């Protein structure tokens, strides 16, 4: 239903497409220049690999999983949460599936056409031309979705206690942006920052950007392990917070 809704109203798609062009497109020009003046290789990666790494981040963002925070906050502020909690459904699962459904169409369109355009403009790194890449990418992509949804749901649920979660959301969102390798590919991070990106949930939510590096083949098991660990921890925290939040709600019939 959400996919049909997004197809009928293409406004969001226009915004997403322009967003990718503005960010990714301009970044490509800039990094092309930077790689050129630095001899074509920086920290063992070339311009093509850096481009795909950043593109994967921006394409993932068109899923708009982070919007789940503001939707949960709206439900809480408007009181709609009372109605939704009284229904025989799991509120959080409902919100999560709604959010994924809303993002699938722009994600598929932007990723499909963006990939073709990028392959045409900068080529495809050899690391992406294997069955191993496809399988491992798919798995880390699913894990990334789960971690993102859990992080942003947790922020949304804090609206039960905090008047306005926006400032907290901005900080978490920007941390994901920095550690996820958005405007600066993770391979170009200084060593300490790379370790923080590797071991924090904010970086783990964007491990898809690591899949194009040659090091991925050696590190993928460790990274899967880190992602699974964060999924378990975050699921526990979200469950506890949701249970406590549930107790705060008083549903009045009428």
């Amino acid at each position, binding site marked *: 239903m959400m996919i049909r809704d997004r197809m009928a109203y293409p*406004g969001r798609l226009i915004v997403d497409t*322009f967003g990718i062009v503005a*960010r990714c497109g301009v970044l490509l020009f800039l990094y092309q220049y*930077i790689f050129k003046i630095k001899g074509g290789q920086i920290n063992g990666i070339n311009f093509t690999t850096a481009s795909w790494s950043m593109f994967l981040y921006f394409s993932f963002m068109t899923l708009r999983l982070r919007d789940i925070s503001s939707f949960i906050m709206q439900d809480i502020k408007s009181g709609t949460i009372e109605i939704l909690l009284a229904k025989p459904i799991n509120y959080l699962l409902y919100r999560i599936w709604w959010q994924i459904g809303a993002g699938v169409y722009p994600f598929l369109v932007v990723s499909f056409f963006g990939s073709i355009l990028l392959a045409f403009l900068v080529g495809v790194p050899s690391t992406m031309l294997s069955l191993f890449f496809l399988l491992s990418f798919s798995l880390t992509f699913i894990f990334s979705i789960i971690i993102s949804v859990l992080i942003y749901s947790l922020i949304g649920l804090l609206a039960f206690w905090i008047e306005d979660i*926006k*400032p907290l959301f*901005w900080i978490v969102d920007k941390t994901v942006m920095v550690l996820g390798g*958005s*405007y*600066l590919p993770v391979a170009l991070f200084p060593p300490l920052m790379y370790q923080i990106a590797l071991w924090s949930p904010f970086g783990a939510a964007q491990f898809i950007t690591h899949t194009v590096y040659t090091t991925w083949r050696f590190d993928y098991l460790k990274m899967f392990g880190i992602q699974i660990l964060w999924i378990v921890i975050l699921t526990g925290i979200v469950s506890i917070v949701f249970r406590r939040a549930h107790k705060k709600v008083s549903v009045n019939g009428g």
Partner: protein
Amino acid sequence: MKKEFIFALESIQKNIRSSAELRTSFWMNIFGMALNNIAFILIWVFLTQTVGSIGGWTVYDVIGLQGFSSFVFGFSMSFNGGLHRTSLIVSSGTFDQFLTSPKNILVRLATSYLHVSAIGDMLFGAICIGIYLYMINAGFTQIILTLIILIFSILVFTGVTICIQAISFYFTDPDSVTRSIFELFFTPALFHGGAFQGPVRFIFIFIIPSLLIGALPVESITHLGYLKALLLVILSIAWFIFSIWLFNKSIKKYESSNFMTFGQ
């Protein structure tokens, strides 16, 4: 002119007072946004650490760039916050209230809304500009130049914003379009200025004036580049005059949906 200025000041005062009613939220928004802005500094500092100087830009220039971009954006969102909501106002049909106002439409529209978090942008921008000036050992001339350039950066940002929002009068669902174009204009203003070279630099100065917000001001101040400063002044005045003309022309395209409401 004097009356319009006094009206604008009173309107801004009223906006700040009403936003400050929710005190905790007000301060959280301001400090949250200031913290949030550190992200871009970190990104470009990491890049500079890894690859060294790019286009002669140092870490201090990056701090200055983020300072200018944040301050100009924050200033516009705070004191001209209504401009950024034009597309929503036009599409909802509530533009009637501005048309029927005895005040200047553009001033009335611009000062009709305050984005609280933008005060955090301004605060962050001012701190960054201060750090930048201190780190480059700025002399008296550079400090004066900074103040002058800030005025013209704000002018060009406001001019381009008016142009973008004027497009609202030509579309039935203008919000997506204006947001997309604004994104295309403002996002490059946050990027490492030293990496804009050749044709890309030309495009982002003369066609999409993103570099006039932060990169060109920083280069003018660091190297006392008076020619670049002059270029900024000329382009900002041109953009501003063009934006007023375009806005007044575009208003005529507005179709009232007969949704009369009283002003805020």
